[in-house]
């Protein structure tokens, strides 16, 4: 059926250039590429550099700041020229601690998000594309992991295996992947019904190849948005866990710093403020960027039909 979609294609009757060989219909108006739309958004222009700044600081910062564990300095000094973020109760340079803490928080956030995306894509893709028994089985698996009480799991794991960054990452990934998988599965199911998947089958391509080459790439937009949101969530959950005392004591994340800052709320406001602000800004930035990404990937918003 002819649709008004094509009505926008009025430009089709004006062929580009004057080459005689061009067939009757010319090039239709193409959308602006996603990344251009994304980078053009004001929210992106503000928050992407902010996020990149945080990442940069946590990567190269350690080369420029002092030791986060050296306790020789006077304790509980407010921010000053010598100690821009003050010192903590043991006299450690707080700037150094926040910078190193950022390493942990950001590492956990991005790693967990990437792990969730990977597991989610594999599980969701297989379930959505193949359907049937594989789908039922994988959905059950996802449901199992979803209902696991992450907090208790973390506590138990910490008690049994000690609490280092790796354990935290693994636990978070284990409890958070099902939501990504659900999105992938829904998209995979939808896409598998489309003409080009059927055409690929008819052409002789095998299932895994179709999944990899046709289904998953087209399923990515909502997955990317969800993954960017996962970064924020993972950081928050990790901060929460750290706040409860489950975290690597030798390499405290921002959440762990917040935890330690509790006891000194009255005297040393800076101990809570700086890590807290960092968490807030990073999570905010990641959420806003994820939202912007969503807008950029969904061109129908604002498009006239």
């Amino acid at each position, binding site marked *: *059926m*002819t*649709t008004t*979609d*094509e009505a926008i*294609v009025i430009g*089709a009757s004006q062929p580009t250039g004057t*080459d005689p*060989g*061009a*067939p*009757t*219909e010319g*090039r*239709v108006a*193409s*959308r602006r590429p996603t990344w251009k739309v994304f980078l053009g958004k004001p929210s992106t222009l503000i928050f992407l550099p902010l996020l990149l700044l945080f990442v940069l600081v946590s990567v190269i910062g350690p080369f420029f700041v002092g030791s986060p564990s050296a306790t020789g300095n006077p304790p509980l000094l407010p921010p000053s020229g010598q100690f821009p973020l003050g010192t903590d109760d043991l006299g450690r340079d707080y700037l150094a601690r926040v910078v190193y803490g950022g390493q942990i928080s950001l590492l956990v956030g991005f790693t967990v998000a990437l792990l969730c995306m990977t597991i989610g894509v594999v599980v969701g893709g297989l379930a959505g594309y193949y359907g049937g028994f594989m789908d039922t089985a994988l959905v059950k698996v996802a449901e199992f992991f979803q209902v696991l009480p992450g907090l208790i799991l973390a506590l138990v794991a910490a008690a049994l295996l000690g609490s280092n960054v790796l354990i935290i990452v693994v636990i978070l990934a284990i409890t958070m992947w099902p939501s990504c998988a659900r999105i992938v599965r829904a998209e995979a199911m939808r896409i598998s019904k*489309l*003409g*080009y998947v*059927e*055409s*690929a*089958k*008819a*052409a*002789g*391509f095998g299932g895994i190849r179709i999944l990899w*080459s*046709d289904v998953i*790439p*087209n399923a990515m937009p909502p997955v990317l948005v969800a993954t960017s949101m996962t970064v924020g969530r993972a950081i928050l959950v990790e901060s929460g866990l750290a706040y409860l005392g489950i975290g690597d004591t030798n390499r405290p994340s921002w959440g762990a710093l917040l935890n330690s800052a509790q006891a000194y709320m009255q005297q040393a406001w800076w101990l809570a403020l700086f890590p807290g602000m960092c968490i807030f800004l990073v999570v905010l930035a990641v959420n806003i960027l994820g939202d912007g990404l969503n807008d950029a990937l969904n061109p129908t918003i604002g498009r006239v039909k």
Partner: protein
Amino acid sequence: MLLEALSVTKSFRGRRGGAPVVAVSNASLRAEPGRFVAIVGESGSGKSTLARMLLDLVPVTDGTVELDGHDIAQLRGGERRAYRRRVQAVLQDPAGSLNPRKRVEQAIGEVVRLHRIASGRSAVRAKVIEALELVGMEPADRFLDRFPHELSGGQRQRVLIARAIALGPDIIVADEAVSALDASVKAGVLKVMADLTETIGVGYVFITHDLPVVRKVADYVYVMKSGEIVEEGPKHRLFADPQHPYTRTLLAAAPELAPAD
């Protein structure tokens, strides 16, 4: 080369204990290179299911589909791939049969590579260009890097045909390949398809609900209703002297313009 459906039946499990749904019942047909065979029917007639059984996209419940006497369900490995190359599909677009993220060169090139028609970037590209030219998209290199949304409906359909013929198939099964197109574009694509029977000797199984179009291009016609083939015959006979009441209804239904003075 002969592609045959022998008394094929397809039934689907009914919903939650309901009766099974019989989509196709006891249908037989023959298709050969160089011949244009049409299956005509309305929605629910089972024609698309029959097409998909010919393409082995849907397994038969009963009966067999045979290629040169071999049951396609039994084919394995190299033979199966050969079957897929010799029997190609052109399914209805609109905007659904091409991966929106793949450019034309990749969409056609990947099947060329899969069936090892050519290898190496330049050889594959040459094949792609050849196929595009055969469907009248010239100069072909203008279209190589376009995405589906940068093509019009008629152009997308031609790309689908190009992808099918790039492999030098014996038979193309086309399901509603032109139904969604405007009259002039439809005529253009049909012309391309009809010409290909002469230039490369390909045969068609053309599935459609549009009876008048069939009169133009088909050699042999099967009429389907409710899963059964109710009438079949050479085109002239069918149009001149339809036997089955349903065929007559279909013929009468199509709105037609009076011929020019």
